[in-house]
């Protein structure tokens, strides 16, 4: 109830669910006007994945790689959205 009231007061704040290398985490109070990389960094911090730079991660939603410099609101994520963060692979092939 209290949370609902808070959301009504601050409609530009949402929660985003991330799966970072297999660990699920929810980033609360994401300002939809902020670039996506702010919440990506929070998701990395919350899951203890701080050893790698943010640029080493691929941010994927619905099988599309997202541009983390875009605003969160540009993607219009539904409440059930799950955003995957996976490490970019090093150069492969023989």
């Amino acid at each position, binding site marked *: 109830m209290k949370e609902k009231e808070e959301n009504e007061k601050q409609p530009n704040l949402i929660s985003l669910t991330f*799966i970072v*290398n*297999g*660990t*699920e985490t929810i980033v609360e109070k994401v300002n939809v006007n902020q670039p996506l990389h702010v919440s990506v960094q929070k998701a990395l911090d919350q899951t203890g*994945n701080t*050893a*790698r730079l943010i640029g080493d991660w*691929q941010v*994927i939603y619905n*099988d599309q790689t997202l541009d983390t410099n875009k605003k969160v609101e540009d993607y219009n994520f539904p409440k059930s959205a*799950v955003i*995957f963060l*996976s*490490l970019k*692979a*090093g*150069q*492969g*092939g*023989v």
Partner: protein
Amino acid sequence: MEYKESLQITDPSVTKNKFDTEVSKFKAVEVNYREKGIICTKISFPNIFFIFAIPKLTPPVIAFSVRINFTNYDFEPPSVVFISPFTEELVRRDQVPVLFIQLNKNNPFQPIDLLQGSGNMAPFFCIPGVREYHNHPAHSGDSWFLYRTRGEGNLLFIIDQLYNNSIATAKSFQAVLNLTEFKMQVQQEIKINK
């Protein structure tokens, strides 16, 4: 088909512990991966078996199947081999009808097929964090120990790479159904009935 299994040389209880950790991490998000078409079919230490299907297509298809082997993990990275989803036997490169494409940083116009191997050789997934990559003579300068604690080589990393570099963006497929044999059988039956 040529394929070298690794012998367990590290303490099996340590490997088993680390294997269980990887499995439990996967189990925690298994539902999300199943929705993408990544289905774990069997867990039998030190192996985990997966089917990669494409649920977006109609009818949904099985694109490929792998066995990920954690022998000596994480002293050695996991091994990834491509198998038949029905018999679990190793398959040849031409039996994996999927491209695993990665952009070439040195030449963007010439993408790299990450699934290497031809002829009688078992195909192998050639990226850092996979045993076959680090054991290959072409990568003797790129040791597993440069990656071991950095995230590459864990189960979800491997699953993500197999998926992201292949079927993630698949939108269609072609199937050719050969009905010649069926037609011949029908003709024979008609003749017999006459």
